[in-house]
């Protein structure tokens, strides 16, 4: 198993999988606690529009996908926050529109690009050194924001109305969270692929939530789950020549199910005040 990491492409893929594992897991804690998993699906699928625009214009697809996903995330947030339509309706419309644009751009591109498959399902061959730098820098940025607003994001996830009453910049924090989701999604696309990346925004946090009721511990366990799944999924992908998106997400799902069954938390009925 060690010799597969002799190849530089596998070393790069491993580095990327570790970084992505950490990043997705941290964001997934907020996604799970603030019940934003459907937004995660919407934002990740909308990245397809950006990737396709990159293909059409010949610009690095990831570089185009970042502003594209950010814009979609903000649009979903803006429309649903202003109360014109509910959040799920906003997501349903915007992500379909972004994907439709993606299909349009692909249609306009000359010739058929095989790379597209990699963007959809992830690829261990696709990670270049510059990708690694991009993942590293953006990941660092997201981590920094989480650390700076750690207590505020905690309060926001727990009780948004009271956070607002206490004078916390609730709107800013919400858009910040959306922005971090968008960036995390795009960063993870190379390895995990557009179709499945949203799963990584949910499963690590949800798995950790089965084990603990301590927030900081939940964060740490989530990161552990993300890293383990990233590495195991990568190895499986190499061994069986399967798309890493599938192996990583299925490993995560397996881990989640195990934790769900053997959860030490006694499942009490939720009391309502």
């Amino acid at each position: 198993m060690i010799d597969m990491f002799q190849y530089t492409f596998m070393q790069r893929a491993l580095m990327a999988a570790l970084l992505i594992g950490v990043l997705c897991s941290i964001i997934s804690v907020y996604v799970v606690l603030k019940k934003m998993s459907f937004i995660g699906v919407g934002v990740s699928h909308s990245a397809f529009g950006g990737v396709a625009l990159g293909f059409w214009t010949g610009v690095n697809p990831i570089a185009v996908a970042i502003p594209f996903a950010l814009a979609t995330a903000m649009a979903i947030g803006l429309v649903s926050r202003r109360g014109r339509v509910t959040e799920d309706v906003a997501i349903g419309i915007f992500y379909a529109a972004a994907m439709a644009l993606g299909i349009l751009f692909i249609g306009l591109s000359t010739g058929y690009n095989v790379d597209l498959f990699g963007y959809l399902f992830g690829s261990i061959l696709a990670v270049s050194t510059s990708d690694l730098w991009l993942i590293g820098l953006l990941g660092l940025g997201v981590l920094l924001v989480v650390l700076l607003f750690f207590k505020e994001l905690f309060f926001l996830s727990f009780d948004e109305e009271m956070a607002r009453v206490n004078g916390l910049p609730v709107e800013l924090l919400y858009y910040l969270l959306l922005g971090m989701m968008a960036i995390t999604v795009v960063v993870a696309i190379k390895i995990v692929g557009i179709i499945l990346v949203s799963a990584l925004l949910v499963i690590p946090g949800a798995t950790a939530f089965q084990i603990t009721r301590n927030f900081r511990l939940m964060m740490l366990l989530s990161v552990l789950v993300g890293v383990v799944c990233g590495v195991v999924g990568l190895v499986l992908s190499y061994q069986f020549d399967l798309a890493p998106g599938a192996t990583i997400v299925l490993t995560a799902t397996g881990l989640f199910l195990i934790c769900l069954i053997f959860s030490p938390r006694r499942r009490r009925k939720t009391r309502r005040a």
Partner: protein
Amino acid sequence: MEAVRLSDVWFYYQGQAVLHEVNLSVEEGEFLGLIGPNGAGKTTLLKLILGLAKPAQGRVEVWGKDPSHLGRQRHLIGYISQRSLVDWQFPASVFDVVMMGRYGRIGLFKLPAQGDREAVLKNLERVGMAELARRQIGELSGGQQQRVFIARALAAEPRLLLLDEPLISLDARGQDEFYKLLASLHCELGLTIMLVSHEISMVSTYVEKIACLNQTLYAHAAPSEVLNTATLERVYGCEVELLAHGRIPHRVIREHE
């Protein structure tokens, strides 16, 4: 000094006037009970004072300022909502939740200091929850959860405390204890308190003044002046029978429809 002032306030919800022409002035240090039937606009009134909603017409002032422009003074208003929409499974301990009340004071990019931890413990003791500080919030009873939220509101060291039907999840004894706690806070800390309730009898025993609201303000005076059949009938729009025990009525029986 005036803590809260509403002048000619109107508020609409889906085209219906929920509040019309409301004028109310609450003095610093006043303990006010706000009563009225369901749908009278009591919660809306509190939300206007909190700056969570804006009046369609008229002015809302807290300490002479628009509540949404209070800035750093924001955390001087404490609020305990009627129904907390929080997820009780949330991984937060009693201590964590009360500490959230300090966040506004601590400010951005800073960690809680020793003084903040002391303030949290002091307020947990005040509501008798210090021993359960390490518990996850979902492991508490409804009354205990309510006390934790009171401790959170107090941890912010507010000057104005707004409570929206805080007694719904408490039994009679719990309600009595709760009122005693409020009365002592009012005396010790000189807090201005606005308490929304539909429990007229209980409120009148403890508060200094009562305001009757049903879309508009009918009365604002001492309980003994407000609580007579004529006023209550106007507010509730139906026959109300008061069983007076001494100076202050203890039970109100409403005959509806």
